[in-house]
């Protein structure tokens, strides 16, 4: 039974990882930008939700009405102000500038909110620890199910948006060939800014669920970035459903690791990530082609 419970917990945890990896993978797929501030930005969203819940006493879910558009706007400004400029100076510059941004964001949060650890769990009643019994002593958490469901809706919605809407097609075309889209009348700067906006809206959702399922402080971003990175790479960067697969693989590995040894949670996750990474490097032909294909952002 504990085996089955570990699988279910792992899969559901994978939903959270897919959610946090989705924005990272999306930004890389469309804009070719590896955003190292990704985790810290999720913490910004979490703090914004916490602030509204704690000081203004609104439900965190209700606070999303303000925080989602706010983070989207931040994404737009980020693209126009920092990412676009640094991407123009070469592939590596965005990595440096977003690394710098992460440091600035972390310390700004520290300055504003101090070193205390916070959580959104106290503001949502008993949601964070309620669970269903599946029978036979098997329990699954309500929050875990909600997280997984939202992740599926988010990824599915994004997929539908990319496949069937004119703007979604423009985003895919810009990911494939940013110079040529201009020649068919697409404003690629606008499209990239929209992509950054969408990425940060997903980051805000990830921030919500991070805050609900655990605690955070101003410096929690880097660990979230690592999880996002691992899920995105395991699943194949730039592919949305791949991200879900990657998240699930990571979640299941971590849950099994935790069952084996108290320290096994992180170790098992890292081990699977390294295995996949090394596998990709040493099993070139077909796997590598699949990887490259997804890396050029074919969102299908």
């Amino acid at each position, binding site marked *: 039974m504990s085996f089955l419970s570990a699988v279910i917990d792992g899969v559901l945890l994978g939903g959270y990882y897919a959610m946090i990896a989705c924005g990272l993978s999306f930004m890389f797929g469309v804009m070719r930008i590896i955003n190292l501030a990704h985790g810290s930005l999720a913490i910004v969203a979490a703090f914004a939700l916490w602030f509204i819940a704690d000081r203004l006493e609104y439900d965190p879910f209700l606070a999303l009405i303000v925080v989602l558009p706010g983070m989207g706007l931040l994404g737009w400004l980020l693209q126009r102000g920092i990412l676009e400029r640094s991407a123009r100076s070469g592939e590596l510059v965005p990595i440096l500038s977003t690394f710098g941004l992460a440091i600035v964001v972390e310390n700004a949060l520290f300055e504003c909110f101090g070193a205390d650890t916070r959580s959104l769990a106290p503001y949502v009643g008993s949601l964070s620890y309620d669970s269903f019994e599946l029978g036979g002593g098997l329990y699954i958490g309500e929050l875990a199910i909600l997280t997984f469901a939202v992740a599926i809706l988010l990824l599915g919605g994004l997929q539908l948006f990319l496949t069937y809407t004119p703007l979604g097609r423009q985003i895919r075309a810009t990911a494939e060939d940013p110079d040529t889209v201009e*020649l068919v*009348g697409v404003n690629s700067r606008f499209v990239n800014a929209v992509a950054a906006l969408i990425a940060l809206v997903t980051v805000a959702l990830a921030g919500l669920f991070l805050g609900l399922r655990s605690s955070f402080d101003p410096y929690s971003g880097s660990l979230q970035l690592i999880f996002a990175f691992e899920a995105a790479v395991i699943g194949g960067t730039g592919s949305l459903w791949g991200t879900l697969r990657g998240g699930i693989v990571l979640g299941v590995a971590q849950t099994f690791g935790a069952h084996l040894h108290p320290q096994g949670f992180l170790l098992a996750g890292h081990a699977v990530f390294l295995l996949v990474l090394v596998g990709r490097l040493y099993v070139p032909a077909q796997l590598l082609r699949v990887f490259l294909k997804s890396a050029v952002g074919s969102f299908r």
Partner: protein
Amino acid sequence: MSLLSISALDIRHGLLQAVREVSFHVDQGETIALIGANGAGKTTLLRAIAGAHRATRGQILLDGLDLTSMPTYQRVAMGIALVPEGRRLFAAMTVEENLQIARASGRKGEWTIDRVMETFPMLKPRRKALCGTLSGGEQQATAIGRALMTNPRLLLLDEVSLGLSPLAVDLVYKSVDSLIVSGATILLVEQDLKRALKVSNRVMCMLEGRIVVEGSAKTLTREQITDAYFGHQKRRRAEASS
């Protein structure tokens, strides 16, 4: 007034000056062939008109409106469409999606996906196929169709026959001919002199970034054009003066 007028255009690739003081006009309904050896500046000139490459000096006017510093996508909305060299389709997207993308500029006009399919019947069975799986001729047809979907007033075709089998070239040109008959304004780069003379009413020959010979496709002789192409005139002039 001419549809397109270019005056004293200079274009650089870094230190290399690819186009030097080029001036010409294109009238509504004309088909102009641009010919010249590799590196003469033909592609650069087309890309500069479309906006993909910025001119360092000179002016590009469409219907009297200055486009010189307008971004590429806005020029599409003004009615300029380039079919780029090498086709540059979105390979991971279907033929239909490639055509739909070109709707972005929102220019009104008569071109629809169905009309593209009628103009290029070979695309009909391939409508839902990914562009990466198309044959060269089908890809070229899609690329031209994609440009037409923007409802252009001026169509720029860059070496549409490059890399195609002779049969595919015939098919593509058959469709280009039907466009010409329907009154489209086309500026095309073509390496095949015979074909260039056949489809166009005016020919411009470029050499080292300059237009050296320009005239009606009817009156220019092959010899005049090949002389210009290889730069014989220039050499003769140089020999005469030394």
